[in-house]
């Protein structure tokens, strides 16, 4: 929220006289303008002292507001953006790639939901190692439960390549240096770090980020939910929209995990439930297959694919 005084430096029309007029109508910040009827305000301006200048000021604020929202794009411009900037990243697991018709899309928020030991973290680690190794980009990994395992990544890398040891070591060096892991233990730290990441991306300090993984997001949000208050939900939705903005505006693939908790009548349900459902683009349900010691993945939601499709058992 910017007070109107801040606008004066850039736009001299927003002078003390104009601000006094605004204050008399209860407008102190530019957000107050948004909930005000500007036509009625213009009417009031016409009655007062120096109406022309006040009307000019209102017009100026309106044009400032116009820059606040994102531009209107037509369908062709959208298609062009999608073709140029939104690539599909392979996860490194062939079955997931086939299921998702190529892999994970940049600009999407992908949620993995499943009970414990259903390979959520394994899919995250695998995707991180594959993206870091094959797309020359940075992977940011927010680890909330100390489950990030560099050893496992080395394992993935040495399994997937059939080159000599020196070359494998070189790839490991390169992949390890492009995965940045942060330990995060509460939602406020997470929001803070997302803010920082957004600022870095905005000022183009860090433009090589290809993927952002939060394992697990639900363990940060679930503690603040419940109790009948609204703040837990507000924090959850704020974090969700933050992730969507990061994903879309900076062409990052965001992957989060969601654990399962016991629900009514013993049926387990996702820890982030109804109000979270509208946040992710893609929801994948991982369930354990005890007979073959692997997991299978079902599409719960996808913008292009029909729901209910699933992979055969996959071992990671």
């Amino acid at each position, binding site marked *: 929220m910017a007070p109107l005084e801040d606008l004066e430096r850039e736009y001299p029309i927003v002078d003390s006289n104009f601000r006094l007029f605004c204050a008399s109508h209860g407008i102190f910040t530019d957000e107050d303008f948004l909930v005000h009827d500007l036509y009625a305000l213009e009417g009031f301006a016409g009655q007062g002292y120096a109406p022309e200048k006040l009307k000019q000021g209102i017009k100026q604020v309106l044009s400032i507001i116009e820059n606040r929202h994102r531009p209107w794009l037509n369908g062709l411009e959208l298609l062009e953006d999608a073709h140029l900037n939104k690539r599909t990243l392979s996860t490194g697991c062939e079955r997931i790639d086939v299921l998702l018709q190529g892999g994970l899309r940049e600009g999407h928020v992908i949620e993995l939901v499943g009970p414990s030991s259903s390979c959520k973290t394994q899919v995250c680690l695998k995707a991180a190692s594959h993206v870091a190794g094959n797309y020359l980009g940075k992977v940011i990994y927010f680890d909330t439960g100390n489950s990030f395992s560099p050893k496992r990544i080395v394992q993935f890398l040495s399994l997937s390549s059939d080159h000599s040891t020196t070359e494998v070591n070189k790839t490991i060096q390169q992949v390890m240096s492009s995965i940045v892991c942060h330990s995060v233990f509460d939602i406020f730290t997470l929001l803070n770090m997302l803010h920082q990441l957004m600022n870095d991306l905005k000022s183009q300090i860090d433009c090589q980020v290809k993927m952002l993984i939060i394992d697990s997001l639900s363990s940060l949000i679930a503690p603040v939910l419940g109790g009948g208050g609204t703040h837990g939900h507000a924090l959850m939705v704020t974090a969700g*929209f933050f992730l969507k*903005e990061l994903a879309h505006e900076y062409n990052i693939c965001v992957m989060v995990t969601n654990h399962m908790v016991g629900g009514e009548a013993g049926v387990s349900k996702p820890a982030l439930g109804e109000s979270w459902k509208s946040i992710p683009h893609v929801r994948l349900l991982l369930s354990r297959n005890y007979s073959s010691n692997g997991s299978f993945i079902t599409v719960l939601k996808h913008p292009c694919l029909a729901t209910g499709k699933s992979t055969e058992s996959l071992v990671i």
Partner: protein
Amino acid sequence: MTSAFSWIKADETAAQALVRILTERPFLVLPAPLHRLPLRVGNVVEVVGPSPSAKTLILIQAAINCILPKEWKGVHYGGLERAVMFIDLDCRFDVSSLSRALQRRIIEANGLRSSLKGNVNEIDKELFAACMGRFLYTRCYNSFEFLATLKTLHHRLQQEKEKRGSAVYMLLIDSIGAFYWMDRALPSSSTGNNNRKSLSLQTVVETVVHEIQRLMAVHPILVLATKSAAFGDKQSTTEVIRKRSDEKMLASRGPQNTSHRDFMPSVWQSFVSHRLLLRTSDGISKHQNHPTFSTEWLLPSLKSSEHFTVDDDGVLVTI
């Protein structure tokens, strides 16, 4: 005297008025499941349903009907050739789903003709580009961006009208309750200043309704909005249950004991002129492994209910 006479003189004849209204406010047949009722400009239609229930897909299908021309190079498409504006509050719109659905519609319309002529149908690039150009899109990540978009929409609509020669026909909002929880937690900053409007869910929604109303007074548009049927916070839910426990006991014997509970402020609820409820229907056997949905018009309430499913290609199929 002359001025008084000119005042009571007729502005236009009925025939002229009819021609004007038919060009300014043409009637568009919307695809299923919105086809039951005649929806015209000036209506505010709300599509309510759980996630996922193909709400966005319904909006996209409606948009395609609007952006396609009525006829193009001798092929009948049955569209309006008017622009649509899509405000994405959920930020999940995927342009490829629009382009694929549009391509499929063009092929289908051509298929009728090419089966007679026997030539291989290929998509007319020019037609496709013209249609995509009529689809305008913006996204908002919070209520203030949404308000800023609405505040400046009047200018934008006018620009489009001048540029294209025809006005925007439809405003699509997906989905209206996206910022509900964020707005409920807005800090109340009104302390000390009595005449300052406090920023809250109530004022934000009031302003949204007010701005759309003002737009509709000047520009004849049809508003289609989706809303996810989430439930409010637990406290109010239990209150409602307590209050309604007696009613519910009676109602539970009936076929539908799950009533739709609106969480948006009443100012939005009363602004809506038509409301369509979507449900996942488990009673009916799954249609080739795809979940089926049932529709019900709540406002105005219609007895008939329809079922549809979404197939692998993302096409709505009514059953």
